[in-house]
């Protein structure tokens, strides 16, 4: 064949000479935003991170990502009130991702598989005293060990776990699960001292010549109100009720049990009473359901179990048989006020669930540690108290008072302590931009409703302390994990690679993502517009320093 005709016939590849990148006035750029779930997690978990691994079915990697921040997946998967799910963008699409249930699946799988936590770090020679073996203390101990510090963990109780063991009923958190996750931490080598109440912190610290202290004292002192009554033996507080049940020393309550209070503890108490044989436990609360601090799910389950509620009522007196209630009303400021109207309720016992206080007597000599509302005041984001080297967390500091929060504080304190013992100071960790729902291109996400965790038949629940809420099957967990929208972070869906009219996106292959070929990118912005998770920004060329991306 002779050479092809001049000009009318052309050879392939010749268009590469035409660098259409010069047309561009806006340049695409990949960004990483903070997903709402991560943002909302009190324990500081990288939830999107471990869901991403779970989506691929690599559950161990997912679990390992999880325990980077929180050593209690199985516990959290049961008792966490999962603010992550409340924040989840997917809720605006169909239903939020069942993060908590996936966490529990991973936690249980880890226990079943006997996966060990990451090993302790190489010794630093530093010693840290941790007072209190609840979620905050154990979390701090775990992180401190991974940093290579020696940990002396003291607790006044005969067993570790704090409220997780003595406050939360077994039907919500089976003890073997708790034990398994605690043992896994202890396996990192923690010097544990039980049945040891610290009276004098300074003394304790010197004795163990510790470089730093973490106070995770909890709040075990039940608040009381003056209830005029004839027979005080018929009145007890929720904490001792739950504690008693936890140590197989359940008090006799009778058939008719009234619980006074509106928090989760009140609900736990009522449901516990039901299981102890109370036929019709009733919760008495001086406001209505909307104002009830207890978590919705807990209340739902309680109602399902036959617990009844009495709104706008305050206990005025109890003579051991007749419980006198005063009707309450709410004024325009929304503050409850007595009405002067009374009614009577016959009950066998009254359980008070009005909150708890911390016992801070051990700090009497620690002058620099400041207090606020009977709790330890925190002076820095790393949980340091007024006294240098003394850190605190959990229920003994002002906070939501959830186990998850406590675990997060333990972690933060550990980071602070690590810095402190190395003579450094940690500031606020930098906060990235939030990945909001409006940046998502939701058309690409197909509707996939959440998988509800199977629940025990309510019939079976009453009377037993069997776990109420079951776990997910592997298929369900995978399904749930894959409902994650990966808000604000590329998950390699290839959209940008596919939708570019100029083939100007280079696919680097997982996990490296993509690169923009600025020689040919005309800056049309389709990639940014069509990115499902909002991980691409268009930036004016004028603002760009001349460099390849």
């Amino acid at each position, binding site marked *: 064949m002779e050479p092809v005709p001049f*000009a*009318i016939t*052309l*050879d*392939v*590849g*010749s*268009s*590469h*000479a*035409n*660098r*259409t990148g010069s*047309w561009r006035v806006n340049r695409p750029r990949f960004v990483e935003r903070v997903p709402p779930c991560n943002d909302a997690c009190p324990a500081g978990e990288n939830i999107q991170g471990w869901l991403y691994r779970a*989506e*691929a079915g690599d559950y161990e990697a997912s679990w390992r990502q999880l325990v980077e921040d929180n050593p209690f997946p199985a516990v959290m998967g049961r008792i966490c009130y999962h603010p992550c799910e409340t924040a989840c963008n997917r809720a605006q699409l169909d239903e939020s991702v069942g993060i908590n249930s996936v966490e529990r699946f991973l936690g249980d799988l880890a226990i079943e598989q006997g996966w060990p936590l990451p090993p302790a770090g190489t010794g630093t020679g530093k010693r840290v005293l941790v007072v209190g073996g609840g979620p905050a203390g154990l979390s701090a101990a775990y992180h401190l060990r991974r940093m290579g510090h020696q940990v002396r963990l003291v607790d006044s109780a005969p067993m570790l776990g704090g409220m997780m063991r003595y406050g939360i009923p077994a039907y919500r958190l089976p003890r073997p699960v708790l034990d398994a996750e605690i043992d896994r931490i202890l396996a990192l080598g923690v010097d544990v001292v039980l049945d040891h109440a610290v009276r004098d912190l300074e003394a304790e610290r010197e004795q163990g010549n510790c470089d730093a202290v973490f106070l995770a004292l909890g709040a075990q002192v039940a608040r009381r109100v003056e209830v005029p009554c004839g027979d005080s033996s018929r009145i007890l507080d929720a904490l001792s009720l739950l504690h008693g049940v936890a140590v197989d020393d359940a008090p006799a309550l009778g058939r008719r049990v009234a619980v006074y209070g509106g928090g989760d503890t009140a609900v736990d108490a009522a449901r516990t009473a039901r299981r102890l044989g109370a036929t019709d436990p009733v919760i008495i609360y001086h406001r209505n359901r909307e104002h009830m601090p207890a978590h919705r799910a807990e209340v739902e389950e309680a109602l399902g179990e036959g617990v009844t509620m009495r709104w706008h009522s305050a206990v005025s007196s109890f003579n051991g048989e007749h419980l006198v209630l005063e009707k309450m009303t709410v004024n325009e400021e929304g503050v409850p006020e007595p009405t002067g109207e009374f009614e009577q309720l016959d009950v066998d016992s009254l359980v008070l669930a009005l909150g708890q206080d911390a016992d801070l007597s051990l700090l009497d000599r620690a002058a620099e540690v400041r207090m606020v509302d009977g709790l330890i005041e925190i002076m820095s984001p790393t949980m340091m108290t007024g006294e240098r080297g003394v850190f605190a967390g959990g229920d003994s500091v002002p906070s939501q008072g959830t186990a998850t929060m406590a675990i997060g504080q333990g972690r933060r304190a550990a980071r602070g302590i690590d810095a402190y013992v190395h003579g450094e100071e940690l500031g606020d960790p930098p906060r990235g931009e939030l990945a909001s729902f409006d940046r998502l291109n939701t*058309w*690409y*996400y*197909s*509707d*996939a409703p959440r998988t509800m965790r199977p629940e025990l038949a309510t019939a079976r629940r009453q009377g037993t302390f069997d776990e109420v809420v079951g776990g997910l099957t592997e298929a369900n967990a995978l*399904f749930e994990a*894959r*409902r*994650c*929208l*990966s808000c604000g972070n590329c*998950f*390699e*869906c*290839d*959209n940008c*690679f*596919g*939708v*570019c*009219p*100029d*083939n*100007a996106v280079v*696919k680097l*292959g*997982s996990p490296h993502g993509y690169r923009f*070929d600025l*020689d*040919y990118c*005309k*800056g*049309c*912005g*389709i990639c*940014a*517009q*069509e990115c*499902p998770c909002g991980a691409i920004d*268009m930036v004016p060329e004028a603002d760009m320093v001349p460099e390849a991306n």
Partner: protein
Amino acid sequence: MAAQPVRFYQVGSFAVGNRLLGDDDRTVQSDPARANSLDCGHRACQGCGEALGARYVLDAAMRSSQGKLVAINATGCLEVFTTPYPETAWRIPWLHSLFGNAPAVATGVAAAMKVKGRTDVRVISQAGDGGTVDIGFGCLSGMFERNDDVLFVCYDNEAYMNTGVQRSGATPPAARTATTESVGPEPGNVFGQGKDVPRIAMAHDIPYVATATVGDLRDLEAKVERAMEFRGARYLHVLVPCPLGWGSSPSDTIRIARLATETGIFPVYEAEHGRITRVSTIRHRTPVEDYLSIQGRYAHLFGPQGHPEVIARIQAKADGNIDTYNLMGEEDDGTAPSGSGD
């Protein structure tokens, strides 16, 4: 693109790819080894829907034909912006002859391949809406009627964009073009005109007819691959928004195409041997305003001097389509939603 074995709810089956899929299950466009039949360096406008659609169509056809593909091109934007001497953006054998003869030229290529025993080589002919519904229509109908072994693809941007946005037989009612200006009592293109070429194609009883848009690229790819399973005359009508001619943002090209289907303005379906076999149902029904208001060519319908009555007529047309094609997927008539991985 077959339904994914991996049910990946993160993106359902709608995004281009999915890091969890095996190579065999990947879309063509998610494959780094895709043909890029229409290569970079072409001179299409920013956000050109036709350039995007063409690469999708040809890459998919390349995969289906194991790289044995020849493309014919009618005169038009696609031809002009891909092959201005001395540069061509085509990586496949490609021939441009005239505006109105792309179907016939393809017939000739197919005949030559047949007579030479090269039945492994497949032939695609492509044109814009002008080259399809107007000037090329005679040749197209002849190619259909003879059932020549050609896949003809119309990239429909609803006007003569190459020459400066003049009305074509595919220009929708009320749309402003350079020859249907937005002035007078009936601004823009008039109602009651235009040609429904997919239906006309179906009337030829050819093996395969389908409509698609660049708003659902997986569906587009799937339809090309389906079309390539047939021999004989096949027709694919692809809606490709044109930022220049439609007065829309380049970044909105795909979004607008998607709205065209979600409003019911552009029904997406498949037909075999003259019978509709599958309709892409609307996932989130949307009022036509959402589609019209982001396009300059409909700007005269909005604002104080707007024409709500015209918008209402367009809505009525969209509703008519939803009815006719059962785009909401009401009562099970055997049509499944588009691309759904479920």
